[in-house]
């Protein structure tokens, strides 16, 4: 359990990372169980496998509930609600019904009056060994279907971007709940003690509708909040502007001496020692973060494969660099990486919210997403990283089979949409669940997003019903009181 680079730590730092020392010293863990029983919390502790967090080392790797298939996760989060009908969910029947009203369909949907049914806006082809139908919108990702497990029958609890993105990322429509990445790193820590355990990489065009709530720690300790960084924006406060190296070193050395003396006079307070250790972790991050963000060490053929060298499309090049950054992070053992594609509501200009001019806008968005994301998955596979890494592609809901009245785009549809998984523990070439023949609603093997999240936790070796945290009187879970693992997509 002692991180390999413990030898670089100061004496108090090293002591802290010794687990036994921590448990006997700390004010937070097993030592207080006896009294906890006394105060009526015993039931809570016994009921679940709650991780014991060493305050000096919150990212220390922790064991899953059962052997995990996946060690790391990359989530490709397409904000704005990608149309299932233009991508993964082939509906030939819709071609026949093009420009006809949907019998018995709703008069008004989220944004206003419903228009006529509209055929898929792209041609579909059979792909790979399974002959999976995928549209020409995303030709590079389409080549990967043999490795992908699609879930075509997901449902959301909200048809509004903000609450629905919350629901996808945190399991609740409301603000303030911990995100999937926070739950994961809370449970498992990280394999790398020199980098944040959980990194959120915003899209070059901006952050999604609900911003930081998508990577927020909610009521979990702040240590498990996603740290944002991207090819365009590095981690804040990595160094002190205008302070020379010798001034910096002098301040840190003095700080270390003062803290050590203080600790000597105040033994038994785990949090004091934890703060000392946190400065040492910070010092390591100061070195390792710039290193990981420096893509100049990537060979030209890699940059080209991702499209990071595309000088004609700066959004694509920046997203491609974010994809490379994601790979570099999991390569170094960072537990959870969230890679955003698409920003906030903008009439579909900056994300997948194709209300009015779907085809026109999707041509642009797919160009940003397709090559870089496909290259990422290929690259992970070639490097053998996909054996340990789960890649999740998701979006907050789908879109309607009909156009909006007077527009060439589709309205929000939370009743049946597609997300997919690939990589560690995922059965490739699977298409699970179905929407009806027009793609309006999920009809077979219907799965609320709870099930999707439960499945991701399962692949990480976590039982979604056991991973809990007490907040304001409720044992909170990522999956609320719901959730069933989708076994059909597992190896």
């Amino acid at each position, binding site marked *: 359990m002692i991180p390999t680079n413990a030898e670089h730590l100061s004496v108090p730092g090293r002591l802290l990372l010794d687990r036994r020392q921590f448990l006997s010293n700390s*004010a*937070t863990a097993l030592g*207080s169980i*006896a*009294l906890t029983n006394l*105060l*009526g*919390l015993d039931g809570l502790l016994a009921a679940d496998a709650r991780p014991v967090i060493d*305050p000096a080392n*919150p990212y220390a790797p922790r064991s899953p509930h059962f052997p995990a298939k996946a060690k790391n996760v990359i989530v490709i989060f397409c904000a704005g609600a990608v149309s299932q009908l233009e991508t993964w969910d082939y509906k030939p029947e819709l071609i026949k019904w093009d420009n006809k009203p949907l019998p018995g369909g709703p008069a008004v*949907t*989220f944004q206003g009056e419903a228009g006529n049914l509209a055929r898929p806006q792209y041609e579909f082809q059979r792909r790979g060994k399974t002959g999976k139908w995928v549209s020409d919108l995303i030709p590079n990702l389409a080549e990967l279907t043999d490795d992908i497990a699609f879930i075509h029958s997901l449902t959301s609890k*909200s*048809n*509004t*971007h*903000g*609450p629905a993105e919350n629901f996808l990322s945190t399991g609740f429509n409301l*603000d*303030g*709940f911990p995100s999937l990445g926070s739950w994961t790193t809370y449970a498992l820590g990280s394999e790398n003690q020199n980098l*944040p355990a959980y990194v959120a990489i*915003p899209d070059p065009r*901006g*952050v*999604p509708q*609900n*911003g930081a709530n998508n990577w927020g720690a909610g*009521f979990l*300790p*702040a240590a498990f*909040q996603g740290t944002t960084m991207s090819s365009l924006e590095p981690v*804040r406060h*990595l160094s*002190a502007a205008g302070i020379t190296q010798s*001034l910096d070193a*002098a*301040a*840190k050395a*003095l*700080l270390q001496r*003062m803290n050590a003396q203080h600790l000597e006079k*105040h033994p038994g*307070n785990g*949090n004091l020692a934890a*703060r000392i250790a*946190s*400065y040492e972790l*910070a010092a390591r991050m100061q070195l390792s973060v710039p290193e990981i963000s420096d893509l100049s060490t990537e060979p030209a053929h890699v940059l080209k494969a991702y499209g990071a060298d595309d000088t004609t499309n700066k959004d694509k090049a920046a997203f491609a660099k974010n994809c490379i950054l994601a790979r570099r992070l999991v390569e170094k053992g960072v537990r959870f990486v969230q890679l955003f594609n698409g*920003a*906030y509501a903008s*009439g579909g200009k900056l994300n997948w919210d194709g*209300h*009015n001019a779907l085809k026109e806008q999707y041509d642009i968005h797919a160009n940003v997403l397709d090559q870089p994301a496909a290259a990422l998955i290929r690259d992970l596979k070639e490097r053998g990283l996909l054996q340990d890494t789960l890649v999740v592609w998701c979006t907050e809901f789908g879109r309607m089979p009909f156009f909006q009245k*007077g*527009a060439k785009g589709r309205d929000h549809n939370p009743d049946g949409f597609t997300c997919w998984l690939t990589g560690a523990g995922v059965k490739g070439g699977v298409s699970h669940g179905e929407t009806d023949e027009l793609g309006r609603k999920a009809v077979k093997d219907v799965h609320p997003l709870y099930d999707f999240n439960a499945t991701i936790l399962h692949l990480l070796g976590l039982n979604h019903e056991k991973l809990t945290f007490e907040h*304001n*009187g*409720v*044992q909170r879970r990522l999956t609320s009181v719901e959730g069933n693992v989708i076994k059909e997509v597992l190896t």
Partner: protein
Amino acid sequence: MKIRTFPLLLLGCVSLERSQAAPVDFVHEIRPLFEKHCVSCHGPEKQKGGLRLDIKKAAFTGGDDHAPNIVPGKPKDSPLLKFVGGQDPDLLMPPKGERLTTDELALLARWIEEGASWPDGVDAEKLVDKRDHWSFKPLASPALPVCKNGTWARSPLDSFVLARLEMEGLGPAPEAERREWLRRVSFDLTGLPPTPQEVDTFVSDQSLQAHERVVDSLLASPRYGEQWAQHWLDVVRYADTHGFEVNTERPNAWPYRDYVIQAINSDTPYDQFVREQIAGDATGKDAATGFLVSASVLLPGQIGKDEASKRLARQDAIDEIVVNTSQTFLGLSVGCARCHDHKFDAITARDYYAMQAFFAGVGYGERDLQTPDAKAARKEAAVVQGKIAEIDRTIASFVPVAFSGAKRVPVSSKINTDRFTPVKAKHVRFTILKTNKLEPCIDELEVFNTQGVNVALGLSGAKVSASGQTIVADRHDLNFLNDGRYGNSKSWMGNETGKGWVAVEFAEVQTIDRVVWGRDRDGKFFDRLATGYRIEVSENGENWHLVADASDRSEGTEKKVNVSNPSLAGLNPEEVRQIKHLLNEKGPLVKQLNTLNSQQKVFAGVSQKPDDIHLLYRGNPEQPKERVSPAVLSALGSLKLESEAPEQSRRLALANWIASPTNPLTTRVLVNRIWQGHFGTGIVETASDFGRMGAKPSHPELLDWLAQEFIRSGWSMKALHKQIVLSATYRQASRWNQTAAAKDAESRLLWRFPPRRLSAENIRDTMLAVSGELNPAMYGSGFDLFNKRGGLSGFTPVEFFEGNGLKRMIYAHKVRREPEAVFGAFDCPDAGLSTSRRRESTTPIQALNLLNSRFSLDRSAALGERVKREMGPDVLKQIERVYQLTLGRLPDSGEVSDAKSVLETHGIATLCRAILNTNEFLFLP
């Protein structure tokens, strides 16, 4: 289908076989069957659908929807059999796992047929009476315990703590040094450290009243209200943005924040504090009801246009009020009962909706403040507004008339006036022929009649039409064209690049002489501007007459033309002179108006006709059941109102019920919150959950004693603080004790004072205080932490602070969900959900922020400068002063020499930067 009907056929056969077999034995035959197939979902762990089959009484009572599920003697009428038999495929039981075999089905049917005999006393589990719970019982008046140590206690409070310690064979820590206690109590009560002067005075004051004098002075300081208001705002998740979808600014939320600070500073009795926050509009405390609407909410434009979306959004909005009220004041999480009876607490779904009914008439929105000041300000604002409008009209009238031959100014993205000879019209059509980019966008189309009245306003009955539009929720909508609101986020956008038209039809024929339009009057957007256009008018909507176009405007576009700086081109010298004169008059008026407007409104909810509240099946607004009228939680009281009770009276009734000395929860919850504020953890660790799933009190008698004292003191929070911080318990050192820690690592039993890190706000405020930069100004609209006050994303943190930015952090404009760039990492709640207790975490990001941020570097430098200024060039004195200011003590000789070598080689700012990062600086002693 065959399979599904099979069990039904089977039911018919049962009676034939019955006479031949012995009666079914529940314990040996039926219970194992329940345990095998049913109890995992309908037993002690879960009671799906409210049904449990492991306890006789519960099993015969039945579940939420199909009770009774077992009808003795009537298998065909027993829903249980229908479900396990699979008659309705949607309700097939068990939904997962092994189905009942045909033999088992037959057995079950026969058992019911025979009368469903279930002997008493065979159940392993007992039904728990959820009402039998400590916090639901009246406050006790506990006798003072007798302790072995007869000299330690200073207050009855101490006797309770000591008795509990002695029970475990433990004793208290020695008293903290005076200096330590002073630092602790200063941070605790005001969030700021004592000044060196205050330390000296107290340490040398050997009188018996010395401690009390300090406490009285701290409680009298306005800093006290600022510190304790923050605790309260954490619980009610106060923020200055709307959260959710667009997180736009909530510009007038801050009067509620200021109300809380004022109320706490003036020691408003807590029962009154409760009443004011729920129904302060009844007693002239308007800002107080900001409490009701402190949550995130979807604004009208962000809710789906379909009725189901609207119903859900309204339910969510009322839910937030119910959750806030019950968890803040009563320490109960009633939110669970929105979908089902609370699993652990005596709160039914009906209770929950009855609670909703109290708030059924509360809408989220701004209200005019009704204070005398606000009323006066409103009156005055109307006058000033009139004067400004008059000036604007006059200025605008100086624009050259279209087609007069004079070259007019180029089109501006901000505002354009097309003036023409007065003409009678009922219709105005604005046709865009060209844009500088993309689809056209117009934020407001105003048409003025010769009296200077805008007759195009939707409010005055004008109707708008267009060639088409691009709708973006809460941003672009044709209806925004004449809604009287300016800016991109209230504008019409066309759906064709470079062309389109909009038209206005007035309520009646008007004589008009001016059209005023713009793309974004806020001046943020410059694209989508109509550069080629025609304005036509018509009386009958058929014959159109051109009154202005772009042909006599100069080429190009302008970005920065605004009303306060109109172009003077094409005007004669006299007109120019007049305009300049008018502008000089206008400037101060605008300033005055802004000030007046900021004093009138508060986001504190609007009272409207109460919605009909129904019990909702599984919380689903699409499945309403019977109507519910306002009533308090049935386990706690019997107050019930008519379903037609007027809006405000509902809230008043609830407030009075909560703020009553006989309510067993209200005072317990509050005294526990205050205890938690002082010791880091409450007597009940789960400060917002006094339910069955919450923690039990560590000192139940003490909690009740404090609550009784609190009521006796007239619900005075200040009296309670004083009682606590002068106690022997609070005066203990924070010294570690191996033996005690082995039994009680978190010192819940208070064998020492549990040390803790300062809060995010306290760290920021203290850095400013010691550097001498803290701006003590109170109240008002929040200062900026980011480059914008709300919105979706792209918050760039402010790095340099001055003026209002140096006020205490409680006066910052709090953007929901956007952690402050430096201190947010110190477990500062983001106002997404209620925070009943801040968890203390330690992360490397905190270290990076505190070491390297501009804020820290600036404070280090300022502290260094301050010390040099105050102490002169003597390095030793400088070092001593830094220690006194930051740590409240003098350095020892080793520290002096260490600091001296750093200071002499690397400058005083380096010393300060290190000290501001030390544990000693950041932890309560």
